[in-house]
């Protein structure tokens, strides 16, 4: 379990959560990025444009 940094609600995590993974908060719907896994630290997932190269 971790805490949504947007609304403060508890966010449930599966066991094999990885750094970089994006989790949706079940309460407020925010997209949260897993910054670290031990312990799990969440931050708001950045909106990203796609800019592929050649």
């Amino acid at each position, binding site marked *: 379990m971790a805490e949504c940094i947007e609304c403060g609600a508890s966010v449930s995590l599966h066991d094999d959560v*990885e750094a*970089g*993974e*994006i989790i949706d908060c079940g309460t407020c719907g925010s*997209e949260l*990025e897993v910054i670290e896994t031990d312990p799990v630290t969440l931050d708001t*997932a*950045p909106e*990203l*444009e*796609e*800019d*592929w*190269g*050649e």
Partner: protein
Amino acid sequence: MTVVVKIGGARAVDPDGALSDVASLVEGGTQVVVVHGGSTAVDDTLEALGESPEYVETPSGVVGRFTDERTMEVFSMVLPGQLNTDLVVGLQNEGVDAVGLSGVDGGLLTGARKSAVRVLEDGKKKIRRGDHSGRIENVNSDLLETLLETGHTPVVTVPMLADDGVAVNTDADRAAAAVAGALSGDLVVLTDVPGVLADVDDESSVIDRVDSPPTYETLTAAAEGFMSRKVMAATEALENGATTATIASANTERPISEALDETN
């Protein structure tokens, strides 16, 4: 008249027709800028080095290359190194005073770095960091104009120079579009199909001309896969100031001149 021609980087998809056509255009007084890519040659060299190109899928289903630091290094080897040198030599042998440039030279192609991308891996949405790619926001047209005015033919390729001072990958079709826009030129994107096909199974169904919103709708609906990126590049070129934009087959004797004749 200034023409910006996007060609493939590898000689195989860039027959001598294009190079001798550049030579006759230059001979006739047209200013030409050649822009090339060559990502398949990058994959070949990565493989020869015992490494693998990495492609990732976005949550929306688009597949793109993830360019880590080593891949970026190989990019510089293959595009401004091998392919650009080869094209410049090929043009010099056609009597064209070609000068090779990458987007880092003279800050030719600059813009924002995009180091993080959203990807879909094993059904999970993730953020991948360390991508070496960017979006061109500025073209140093002074450098191109200086070279054109002194009788040279710039041969431009990626990488671009990102705002964090790092050389990064960017799409060569869109690089050509940015250059055509900055020079108010005519963009000709050569490809290995005759153009955008209304019916992808019918090579005679080329959409010849788009000059109204409904025909543009038809065009964007018809363009699939890699061709949709070329249509997007052509659209960007026109939005940024290019006079015309044409997507045409490289596999004719005078591919650029023919495309320009049909456009004008």
